[in-house]
C-alpha cells in the first residue's frame, strides 16, 4: 500500500492521486491550515508512518513551518514515527476496561502477534497498542482495529478480527445494534433507541425529528437563545456552564464583522464516558438538528463536528446523516465533520480549537474566551454533542417544560454512561437530580451482587466518592459540587470491594500522564511524578511518606495549571488518598522483602 522506496527518492512520496487528495484538504475549510491534521492522517494511513519527506511536503502544501508539522506529528498519538502495521490493533487499558479484564487481553494479543507494543510484525501486517480510553467502557474490555471500534475483546472476537485482517480485510463493526429500551420512561434523547433505523432520516422524522428545527427557523435568534436560557440547560461535556449564557457572549455581527462558528465537541475521551459515541451512532440527526438551531441562534457561518480520531464508524454514520439532511433541504448551514488525531486534551474547548487550526493541542488561557475569539480568532461556540442534541429537545418541549424536568439551575435530562462493576453497563437517560441508586438499578445493580466500595461520578477526572458519600446522592452539577466532586460528562463508574484503590489511582494518573500536553510545568511534571510514585508503591517499594506526598503533590498542582486536565491530576490523587488511605497504608505493612 505504500510507495516503493525508489519512488520516494525520485517522484516524491505520493502518487498523483494522493497528491491531489492532499491538495483537496487545503480547500475544504475556510483556512487551508485547518485541513493540515486530517491531511497528515491520510499520509499516516498510506505510509504507516509520517516521514520527514512527508512532513516536508505537508509544510510546503499548507504553507506552515516545518517544525510546526513535526510538532503535530510527534504530539498526536495517531501518528507513528516508525512504520506501524497495516492493521493497528488497540486494546483499551483504562479503568473500566481494566476492571473488565484488559490486562489478560493485552497479554493474549502480545502472544498472538509476537511483537512488543508499537512494533510491526515481520510481515508488516500488525502492530498493537494498549491504548487509553477508546470510549467504549460499556463494552469493556474494548478493542479496535484501525480506529474501528469492534466491541468487547472476547477471545472469539479478537480471533475473528485478527483472522479477518490476515485475509486482507479490515474488520468493520456491524451496523449499530438496538440497545435495550430506555430505563427512564420520560427519556427524550434515548426514547426511540429501540428503533433500529433511528439513524436514518425517514425514521428520525417519523419520530418527530427536525420539528424543533422547523420551529426554530420561524423564530428570531434572540428568541431561540431566550428559550434555551429558560430551560436551564447546562453544558453536558463536563463544565456545566449555562448554555444560553454562553451563547449570549457571542458578539453580534454588527460588532464583530467576521465569520461566526459553531463546533460540536465530539472529542469524547474521558475515561468512563461513552454517551456521545452511542448518541451519535444511534441518533446522528439529533446532533445535526441541534447544530442548525444553535447556528441560527448565534448567526454562525461555519458549523463543524469535531470528532475524536478513533470514532471511524461514527464518522461514517454522521457523514451519511449530514448528506441525507442536506439532500432533504434541512440544512441552513453545511455541517463538516472534522477529525482529530487521538489526543484526549483536544476535548478541552480551547485545545480543540488549536487542533482545528492545525496545531498541537496546547490549551489556550482565556481571556479571550472562544465565544469572543475562538477558531481563527472568530467568535466560536463550542458545545458538547449531548448539549446540542438537548437544544433541539428544549425547542421541542419548550424551555419551561425542559427546566421542570430537572433540578433548579439545571434543567432537563442527561445521558449517564454507566460502567465498571455493574451488570449492564450502558447509557441511561435520567433527569438531573436523579438519585444514584436509580442509575445503579437501571444498570442491573452491582455485578455479582458485590458490595459497592466507591463511585467515580463523572468520568475519571472527577474526584472519587466513597459508598457512604454516594448514598442517596442526587446526580446533578450542584449536588456533586457539594460533595467535593463533579458531575463532569456523566461517566459513572461503580467500583466494588474487590478493587484496590492504588491500582485505580495508578490507572487514572497514568492516563493523565500519557495525555498531559506538557505545556505547563505542574501538570507535565506532576502527572509523571505521581505515576512513578504509584508504580513504585505497586512494586512494593512503598515508604511511609508516600500517601502524604501524593496529597501534597496533588494540592500543588490543582489550581496552578492552565487547564482542567492539570487540575484533575491533583484533585483525583488528593481525594483518592484521603478517602482510601487504608488501601495505601496496607502496602506499608508488607514492605518489599
Amino acid at each position, binding site marked *: 500500500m505504500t510507495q516503493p522506496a525508489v519512488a520516494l527518492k525520485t517522484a516524491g512520496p505520493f502518487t498523483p492521486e494522493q497528491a491531489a487528495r492532499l491538495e483537496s484538504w487545503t480547500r475544504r475549510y475556510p483556512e487551508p491550515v485547518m485541513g493540515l491534521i486530517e491531511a497528515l492522517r491520510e499520509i499516516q494511513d498510506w505510509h504507516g508512518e509520517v516521514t520527514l519527506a512527508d512532513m516536508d511536503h505537508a509544510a510546503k502544501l499548507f504553507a506552515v513551518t516545518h517544525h510546526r508539522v513535526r510538532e503535530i506529528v510527534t504530539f498526536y498519538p495517531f501518528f507513528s514515527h516508525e512504520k506501524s502495521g497495516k492493521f493497528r490493533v488497540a486494546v483499551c487499558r483504562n479503568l473500566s476496561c481494566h476492571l473488565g479484564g484488559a490486562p489478560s487481553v493485552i497479554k493474549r494479543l502480545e502472544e498472538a502477534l509476537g511483537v512488543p507494543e508499537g512494533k510491526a510484525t515481520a510481515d508488516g501486517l500488525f502492530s498493537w497498542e494498549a491504548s487509553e480510553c477508546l470510549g467504549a467502557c460499556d463494552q469493556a474490555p474494548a478493542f479496535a482495529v484501525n480506529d474501528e471500534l469492534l466491541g468487547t475483546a472476547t477471545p472469539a472476537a479478537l480471533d475473528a478480527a485478527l483472522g479477518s485482517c490476515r485475509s486482507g480485510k479490515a474488520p468493520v463493526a456491524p451496523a449499530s445494534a438496538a440497545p435495550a429500551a430506555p430505563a427512564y420512561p420520560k427519556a427524550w434523547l434515548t426514547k426511540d433507541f429501540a428503533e433500529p433505523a433511528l439513524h436514518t432520516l425517514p425514521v428520525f422524522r417519523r419520530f418527530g425529528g427536525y420539528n424543533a428545527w422547523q420551529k426554530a427557523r420561524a423564530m428570531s435568534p434572540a428568541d431561540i437563545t431566550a428559550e434555551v436560557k429558560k430551560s436551564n440547560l447546562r453544558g453536558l461535556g463536563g463544565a456545566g456552564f449555562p448554555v444560553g449564557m454562553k451563547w449570549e457572549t457571542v458578539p453580534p455581527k454588527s460588532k464583530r464583522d467576521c465569520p461566526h462558528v459553531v463546533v460540536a465537541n465530539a472529542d469524547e475521551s474521558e475515561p468512563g464516558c461513552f454517551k456521545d459515541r452511542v448518541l451519535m451512532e444511534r441518533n446522528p440527526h439529533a446532533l445535526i438538528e441541534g447544530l442548525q438551531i444553535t447556528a441560527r441562534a448565534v448567526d454562525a457561518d461555519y458549523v463543524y463536528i469535531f470528532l475524536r480520531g478513533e470514532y471511524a464508524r461514527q464518522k461514517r454514520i454522521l457523514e451519511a446523516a449530514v448528506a441525507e439532511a442536506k439532500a432533504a433541504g434541512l440544512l441552513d448551514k453545511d455541517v463538516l465533520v472534522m477529525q482529530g488525531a487521538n489526543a484526549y486534551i483536544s476535548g478541552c474547548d480551547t485545545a480543540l480549537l488549536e487542533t482545528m487550526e492545525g496545531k498541537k493541542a496546547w490549551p489556550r488561557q482565556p481571556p479571550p474566551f472562544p465565544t469572543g475569539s475562538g477558531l481563527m480568532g472568530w467568535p466560536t461556540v463550542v458545545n458538547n454533542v449531548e448539549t446540542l442534541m438537548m437544544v433541539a429537545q428544549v425547542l421541542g418541549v419548550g424551555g419551561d417544560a425542559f427546566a421542570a424536568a430537572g433540578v433548579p439551575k439545571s434543567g432537563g435530562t442527561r445521558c449517564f454512561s454507566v460502567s465498571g462493576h455493574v451488570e449492564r453497563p450502558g447509557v441511561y437517560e435520567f433527569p438531573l437530580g436523579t438519585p444514584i441508586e436509580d442509575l445503579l438499578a437501571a444498570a442491573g445493580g452491582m455485578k455479582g451482587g458485590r458490595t459497592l466500595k466507591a463511585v467515580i461520578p463523572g468520568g475519571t477526572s472527577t474526584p472519587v466518592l466513597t459508598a457512604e458519600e454516594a448514598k442517596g446522592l442526587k446526580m446533578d452539577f450542584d449536588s456533586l459540587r457539594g460533595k467535593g466532586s463533579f458531575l463532569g460528562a456523566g461517566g459513572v463508574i461503580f467500583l466494588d470491594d474487590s478493587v484496590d484503590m492504588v491500582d485505580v489511582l495508578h490507572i487514572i494518573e497514568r492516563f493523565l500522564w500519557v495525555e498531559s500536553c506538557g505545556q505547563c*510545568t505542574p501538570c*507535565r511534571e506532576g502527572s509523571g511524578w505521581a505515576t512513578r510514585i504509584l508504580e513504585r508503591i505497586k512494586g512494593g517499594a512503598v515508604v511511609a511518606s508516600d500517601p502524604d506526598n501524593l496529597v501534597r503533590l496533588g494540592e*500543588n498542582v490543582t489550581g496552578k495549571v492552565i487547564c482542567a486536565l492539570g487540575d484533575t491530576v491533583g484533585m483525583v490523587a488528593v481525594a483518592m488518598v484521603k478517602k482510601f488511605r487504608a488501601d495505601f497504608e496496607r502496602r506499608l505493612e508488607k514492605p518489599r522483602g
Partner: protein
Amino acid sequence: MAKLVKFNLDGREIEAPEGQLVIEAAKDVGIEVPHYCYHPGLGNPGVCRLCVCEVEGAPKPQMSCRTAVREGMKVRTDSPVARRAQAASLEFHLANHPLDCPVCDQAGECHLQDYYQGYGLYKSSVREDKRHKQKRKDIGRAVMLDQERCIQCTRCVRFTDEVSKTHELGVFGRGDRSVLDVYPGMRLDNPYSGNVVDICPVGALTDKDFRFSVRAWYLDKTPSLCTGCARVCSIEVHTNTRRPWHTDGRRVARYKPRYNTEVNRWWICDEGRYSYKSADSPTRLKASSTLGADGHAVQVAPADAAARLGSELGRHISERGADGFAFILSGTLSCEDLFAAKQLISRLGVPASNIVLAPAPEQLGEQDDILRRAEKVPNLYGATALGFDVSRSLDRLKAPLWGAWVVDREAPAAFKGLPFTVWQGPNAVRFTSEARWVLAASHTVEEKATYANFQGRLQRANRAVESLGESQPDWAWFGAVLRAMGGDFPHQCAGSVFKAMSAAEPAFHGLSFDLPAEGAPLVAAEEAVR
C-alpha cells in the same frame, strides 16, 4: 502613555500604567517575581507557572505574567499561598532536572539555582528516577543543547519564531516526553543564534564558544558597546582576570547583550557576540615600532614614538607640503579619537580632500531588519557630526602623495612605496608591516569612549580591561603627536577630551560624558553638521 493607576503590591501602594503586567510593574519597583517562561521581548505564554501571585477577590492563584494591573487591585507575590505555589512550581521544575550543576556551564548564573536559593523548598521528596534525554546535541554553529536540563519554557522557540523568524526550534513530543530540538536536518545557524543561550534560564542551551572555559562567578562585568557595526549594540563585556589560565590568558571571556530599549533591546547578533576575540587576538599590537635602517621594525616606547614621529612628520611637511599627506581614518574611531584627529589635522594643515573616512569595502557586510547594519564600522554618524565627509572614498584621493596616516584599516598597495607612512590601530593588518611607523592602539574594551550609531544615538563604551602592553587610545596618539609638534592638547583622559568636544562641537553641546545607560541622541546632529 496609558493611564496611571494605583494598586497595592506586596503591601506597597504603587502606581503603574493601567494594563501593565504585574510582573513588569513589580520589576519597576524592585520586586522580583521568579519566572522562567516570561520574557518581555517574547510575549507571555504563562506555561512555567512560577510567577504565582494572589489577587484579592480571585478564586485561585494568578500568574503575574498574565495579570494586568487595575486600579485598586491588591496583589501579593509574597503571601504564604504565593510563596508555597512558587516553591511547588520549582519542585516540579526540578523533578526531572538532572541537577548536574558541577559540570554545567550555567552554574552560577542559572535561574534554577538562583530561584531555588530564594524560593525553593530545600527538601527533596523525589525518590523516582529521572527521565533521560539527549545530553549533548550539537544543534548549531554556536549552540549546544542538553535536553535533560531543558525546563520547556519555550523562550528559545519563541525567539526563533518571533525574533529571528527562522523557525529552527520546536518542542516535539508530548507531556514529559517532549523535547526541545531542532527540526531534523536543520541547524540553529541563524545570525542571531547566540541569543537563545542568553534567554535560556537554565543550562539547556550553552554557548559552544564559552563552554567549559571559565566559571561564571569568576567573571567581571562591564557595561559597554559592541562596535561591530553601525547599530552599536549595548553589551556587557565579561572579563576573566582572576583565573587567567582558564581562558588561556584571554582576558575577555564573552560579550553579552545589555538591554537598551532604543538600540538593541535584549539582543545582539552572533557576528558582534564573537567579535570579542579581537581584543586578545594574536594580531593585537602590544607595542609601537618604527622601521630601522635595515628595514626591520624596532620597538619604540610610546612617549619616544610620539616625539620622533612628530618631528619626522614636521620635517616632511615643511619639505613637501601638507597637500601630499593624507589621513585614512576609520569609522571604528570613537568621537574622542576623531575629535583629537581633527585637532591634529587642522594643525598640520592637511586639506579636507585628503581626509578619507568612508568605510573600506571589507567594512561593509550584511544588513537585516533586526539589528545588523551593512556598515560594519560603528561611528560614521559621529564622524559626520564632527564635520568629517564620510562619503569620500579612497580611490578619489587625487593629490600625488608622499605620505599617509592610516588608522585601523587596510591601505592600498600603492601606499607601500610612500616615503612616510603611519599605521595605527589595535590589530595588525597586512599593511601594518609596511608602515614606517606603527602605533599600537587600545581596543574598544580597553577605553572609555563614545560612539554615535546610525540613529545618531551617542553611547559610551567603558574600560573592561587595561590597555594591552604599551597600546594607548587613538585620541592619545593623535594628542601626543600634536603636542610633540607644538600643538595644544592638554587632555589626559577621555572624559577631558569629551568635555572639550562638547564645548567645541555643536552636535555635542550640553552632553555629558556620563551618558545614561541607553545613551542620548546627539544634539540636532543633522543641523549641526550642516
